[in-house]
């Protein structure tokens, strides 16, 4: 009775919907005021110091060289071009790192629970040591301790005078397309498609008739035969450009710069320790009863792993795996410490120094990492949904 006698305002204050709307409005207003203050403050400061704003600098000539470029580039290209060169270098080392860290990580993770005592202990020590040393130190280790002790170009380590390893990097023959190359490539693509079709056919036949087919060896046979026989039939369509020592360095061929190698190794090894633990915990998260059911039904160890354990471990492994892939991509920005020309080093480093347009450049760089990360995690979420369990 007493409660009902309250006037309109008091009733509004105690209404949960009105209350939550009110507080949200207050927070939003505060946030807007904060942002506006910062922006106007920045504009005034830039104005008084005479720093130009806007993205006009992207079309000015850069005037500096970059040690590794996946697209055509030299000093006369624009700052806009340096952005893409840096971006591609970042994507290159991230992609290489993700693939190799996954392969190595799965191997380490499976070894960690192997029945083989030695393998188990080695991978345990590997994980415990390497994930507890800071990544930057590991990059320095590979760059300064390992790669800098390699011989000078003149005394290169060599494999059959075709591959050379020295302090400047790894030099390899570069394949070059000759006439007949398109035909040869078409043959190879056809063979790969053929192998896929064969695999699906063999699986269908196994399901329908129970007969098995040696898919692996048949596929290897088809691919090798196409590669070798096709090479000669199409008239040797690939020639190699061999690296040669001219003066102080090698010319020709293909090369991996030591900065890329050091960064790639460090990212791979550091991230593989985390992936190893994710794989181990994923496999161990599958209840032991599943293993017993498989054995009681007569499934062998390989079938048990592939048909029952891994599909279930997968759904536990994917979310943490995603964050490792994101970490690796973001960690690749440590490249700047050894001068690998990634996005941060080339764009948020050199370009920023030369133009002074910190806000634009840092914003663009952040947006790039944000976009890459969101794309990776969108893909992984889609994949996760596909392997999720139906509970009810």
């Amino acid at each position, binding site marked *: 009775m007493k409660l009902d006698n309250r006037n309109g305002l008091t009733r509004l204050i105690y209404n949960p919907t009105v209350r939550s709307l009110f507080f949200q409005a207050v927070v939003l207003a505060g946030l807007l005021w904060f942002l506006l203050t910062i922006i106007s403050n920045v504009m005034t400061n830039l104005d008084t110091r005479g720093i130009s704003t806007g993205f006009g600098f992207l079309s000015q000539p850069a005037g500096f060289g970059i040690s590794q470029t996946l697209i055509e580039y030299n000093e006369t290209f624009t700052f806009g071009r340096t952005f893409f060169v840096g971006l591609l270098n970042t994507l290159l080392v991230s992609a290489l790192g993700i693939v190799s860290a996954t392969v190595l990580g799965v191997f380490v993770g499976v070894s960690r629970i192997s029945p083989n005592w030695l393998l188990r202990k080695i991978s345990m020590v590997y994980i415990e040591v390497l994930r507890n040393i800071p990544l930057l130190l590991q990059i320095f280790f590979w760059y300064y301790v390992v790669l800098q002790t390699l011989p000078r170009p003149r005394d290169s380590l060599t494999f059959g005078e075709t591959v050379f390893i020295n302090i400047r990097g790894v030099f390899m023959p570069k394949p070059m397309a000759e006439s007949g190359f398109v035909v040869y490539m078409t043959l190879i693509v056809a063979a790969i498609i053929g192998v896929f079709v064969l695999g699906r056919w063999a699986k269908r036949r*196994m399901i329908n*008739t129970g007969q098995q087919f040696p898919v692996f060896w048949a596929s290897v046979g088809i691919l090798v035969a196409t590669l070798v026989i096709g090479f000669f039939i199409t008239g040797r369509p690939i020639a190699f450009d061999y690296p040669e020592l001219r003066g102080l360095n090698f010319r020709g061929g293909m090369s991996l710069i030591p900065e890329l190698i050091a960064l790639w190794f460090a990212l791979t090894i550091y991230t593989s320790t985390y992936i190893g633990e994710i794989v181990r915990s994923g496999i161990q998260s599958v209840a032991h009863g599943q293993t017993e059911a498989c054995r009681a039904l007569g499934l062998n160890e390989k079938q048990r792993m592939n048909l029952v354990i891994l599909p*279930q471990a997968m759904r536990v492994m994917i979310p943490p795996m995603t964050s490792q892939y994101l970490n690796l991509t973001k960690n690749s920005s440590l490249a700047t410490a050894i001068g690998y020309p990634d996005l941060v080093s080339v764009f948020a480093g050199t370009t920023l120094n030369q133009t002074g347009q910190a806000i634009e450049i840092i914003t663009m760089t952040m947006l790039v990492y944000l976009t890459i990360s969101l794309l990776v995690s969108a893909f992984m979420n889609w994949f996760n949904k596909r392997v999720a369990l139906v509970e009810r």
Partner: protein
Amino acid sequence: MTNEQEFIITLNKVNKWYGQFHVLKDINLNVKVGERIVICGPSGSGKSTMIRCINHLEEHQEGEIVVDGVVLNNDLKNIGQIRKEVGMVFQHFNLFPHLTVLQNCTLAPIWVRKMPQKEAEAIAMKYLERVKIPDQAHKYPGQLSGGQQQRVAIARSLCMNPRVMLFDEPTSALDPEMIKEVLDVMVELAQEGMTMLCVTHEMGFAKKVADRVIFMDAGQIIEQNEPEAFFNNPQSDRTKLFLSQVLGH
């Protein structure tokens, strides 16, 4: 090999230790084709361990186990051969949660027996009908009740067309009202002549279908007899005490 025809399972002086702990002590057991055996006893007496040794989920250290003429040793081929012929139902069902009920049932026939998928599915449907849940074939285990899951697990084992079925406390994890639906399926299976070894505390089931009841305590077979004699006239004091506790309420 004189027993080959007569006995489908033979345990001869089987001993097993967990570290220092002696779980199975000189177990001797012969099971005839079509015989239905119920094994009871207090927890920790080694009943589960004994039947789990028969399909090598546990390894025995001494003695000889022969199943369907195959000696159970460390030879992977022998182990695989025995597991094909021996079905097992677990206390916690252990269905594969990422596969549908039908896929649970066809997995082993397809991959172990190398059976065509169509044939495997037809057989699976036959057994799902027998356990009275053909309409759940395309659901996932997580969508079923405990009793339904256990019946799927029985169907899954039967799809391998085993010669022997082992039941390891199949009703212990179930709600009271679901126990009956599982026991009904097991009774039917027993009446059709399946060789069964069943660890259970369901004494009603033992009285109804068992040819022999075995009482185990502290890793030994204390007493075994036909159900009538076993329940009405137990010989050892340990059995009497156990029965008074199980049947006393």
